[in-house]
C-alpha cells in the first residue's frame, strides 16, 4: 500500500503517418449492401467460384478419369512402372503429392484474387 508507484513511462507508437480512413467508400458500399457493393460482391464470388471450379474440374478429369481410362484401355491395368502396376502406383502414391501441389496452387491464386479485390476497393 505504501510503496512508491513506479515511474511513469510514456508509451508511444513510432508510426505517426495518417491512420487508415475508417472505411473506404467502396468497402462501405459493400457493407451497406448498395447496388454497387452488390456488383463487387458478385464479382468476387464469381472469381473465387471460377477458381474453385477449375481445381475441381482438374481433379475430376484426372482422378475421376482414371476409371474411364482403365475401362477404355484395359491393357493399362497390366501396365507396370518400376515394377508396380500402374493403378496401384497412381492411387497408392502419386495422387497425394499431386493433390498437395494443386491445393497449394489454389491457395496462392485465391489469395491473389483477394488482394486484387482489396486493391480494387482502394483504388477506385
Amino acid at each position: 500500500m505504501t510503496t512508491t508507484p513506479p515511474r511513469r513511462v510514456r508509451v508511444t507508437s513510432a508510426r505517426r503517418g495518417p491512420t487508415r480512413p475508417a472505411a473506404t467508400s467502396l468497402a462501405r458500399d459493400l457493407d451497406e449492401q448498395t447496388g454497387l457493393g452488390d456488383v463487387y460482391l458478385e464479382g468476387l464470388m464469381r472469381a473465387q467460384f471460377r477458381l474453385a471450379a477449375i481445381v475441381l474440374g482438374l481433379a475430376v478429369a484426372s482422378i475421376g478419369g482414371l476409371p474411364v481410362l482403365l475401362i477404355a484401355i484395359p491393357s493399362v491395368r497390366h501396365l507396370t512402372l518400376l515394377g508396380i502396376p500402374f493403378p496401384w502406383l497412381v492411387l497408392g502414391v502419386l495422387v497425394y503429392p499431386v493433390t498437395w501441389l494443386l491445393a497449394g496452387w489454389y491457395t496462392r491464386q485465391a489469395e491473389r484474387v483477394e488482394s486484387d479485390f482489396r486493391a480494387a476497393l482502394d483504388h477506385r
Partner: protein
Amino acid sequence: MSAPLSLVAVGVVCLLTLILGGLGLRLSRATSDFYVAGRSVSPRMNASAIGGEYLSAASFLGVAGLIYDFGVDQLWLPVGYTLGYLVLLVMVAAPMRRSGAFTLPDFAEARLQSSRVRWIASVLVVAIGWLYLIPQFQGASLVLQHVAGVPGWVGGTVVAIVVALAVGAGGMRSITFVQAIQYWIKLSALAIPACILLALWWRSGHPAPVSPDPSWHLALTPREPGDHPTYRVYSTMVALCLGTMGLPHVLVRYYTNPDGVGARRTTVNVLALLGLFYVIPPIYGVLGRVELPTLPAGFRTDTIVLRLPGLVVGGLGGDLLTAILAGGAFAALLSTASGVAMSVTGVLDQSLVRPWLARATGGDAGMPFGFRIAAAAAVVVPYAVSRLADPIGLATMVGLAFAVAASTFAPLLILGVWWRSLSRRGAATGLVVGACAATLSVGASIVWGPFEGWLGAILSTPAAWTVPLAVLVTVVVSLATPRSVPAGTTRLLVRLHTPEGVDVRRSRPAD
C-alpha cells in the same frame, strides 16, 4: 504372446490422453480464454491437430484390412478421405472460418436464420457423430481382443470410459496440442513397423503378393457376375469427397484458425499430412497377401495390421512391433472418438439438455452438470449400439457416416456459401430428403441385404444418387419458395467472402 507389451502400450496411450487432457484444460485456463488462444494456432500446428483427429481406426486398421481383402479397388478409400479436404478447401474452408460459426448447426442458423433448420442440422450432427463413433468402439474391442485375448466388450468399454471422462472434463477441444501430438504418434506407430516389414520383405527376395482372386490385382474387375465395381468406386468417391466437410468434428477445428487465409493454408498442410499417412496402409494390405495368401477361417481382415509383425518377425521383436501398432491404433481411436464425441456433446448440450434442464430446474443447474449429462449420452448410445449390432467392418460403417454427411451437409454448405437464392424451406427439405434417402438405402441393404446386382450396388453405396437428389430438391424447393429466402442473405455473403483487411464492420461482427 504379445499381450503384456501391447497392454502396456495401450495403457500408456490412454493415460497420456487423460493426463494431457486434464493438464491442457488447466493450462488453457491459466493463460487465457481458450477460444482466444485457439485463434493464434499456426497453420502447421492446426494441420497436425486436424490430422490427429481425422485419422481414425478406419484409417489405421480398416483401410489395410480392405486392401488385403479386396485389393486395388480399395485404394480409392484413402484417396477419397484425402480428396475430401481438397473439396473442402476450394468450396468452404475460408468462408466457414469467416462465418464465425462454431458448429454446423451454428452455420445453418446464421445462414438461414431459422431455428427449424438449426434443429434439423443438430439432429443430423448427432446421428452422423453416433454412426462415426460405433466403429471406433468396435475397433477398440477388436484391438484388445487380438493383442491381449480379452473378451470383446473390454476394448470398447475402455474407450467409451476414457472418451466420456476426457470430454466430460471439458478438456479435449481446448487442446489442439494433444491432437497434434496424436497425429505424429499415429504416423510413427504405423510407419516404423511398416519400414521394418518392408526391409525384411525385400531381404527375403521380395516375393509378389498372391491372391486367388484376379480382381485383387486388376483394377475395376468384377468380383462376381453381378458386381459393379466402377459404380461403387464413383459412388464411394462422391460420398468421401463431399462427406468430409459434413463430419461434425472436421469444421469445428477450422474455427481455431486465425482467419480465412489461415484456414486455407491449414488445409494445404492437412493434405500433405494425410498423404504422408495414407501411403502406408496399402503396404500392410499387400504384405499381408505375401505372408497370408488366403484367409484362414474365423479371421477378421481388420486385424491384418496387428497380425503381420507376429507372422513376419515373431519373437520379442514381433511383440514389440505389435505393441507399437496397438498403441497407435488406440491413439487413432481415442483422438477421433473424443473429437466426434466432443462435437456431439456440444450439440446435445446446446439444443437438448440445457433447455430441458432449464425447464426442469428453473435454471438452477450449473453448466458443467448439463454438459456432463450430454457427454454421457453422446458416448453411451453409440456404445450400446456397438455392443448390440454385429460388427459390420470398420470402413463400411464409416462409409455410411460419410454417405449421410455428403447427402445432407455438403449441399447445405456449398449452396449456402455460393448461392444467394437458397431458401429456408429449400434447405430444410434438402436436408431431410438427403438424410432419409441415404439412411434408408444403406439401412435396407444392411438389414435385408446384401442384395445382388445393381440393386445391391445402388443401395449399399447410395451417394452417387442421393447427393444429386438432395441438391436437386434443395434447388427446386428454394426456387419455388423465393419468399422464404432469408432477408440477411447478402449481409452474410459479404461476411463469408470479403477478405480480411476490408473494413466491413456491420457485416462482420468482432469474433
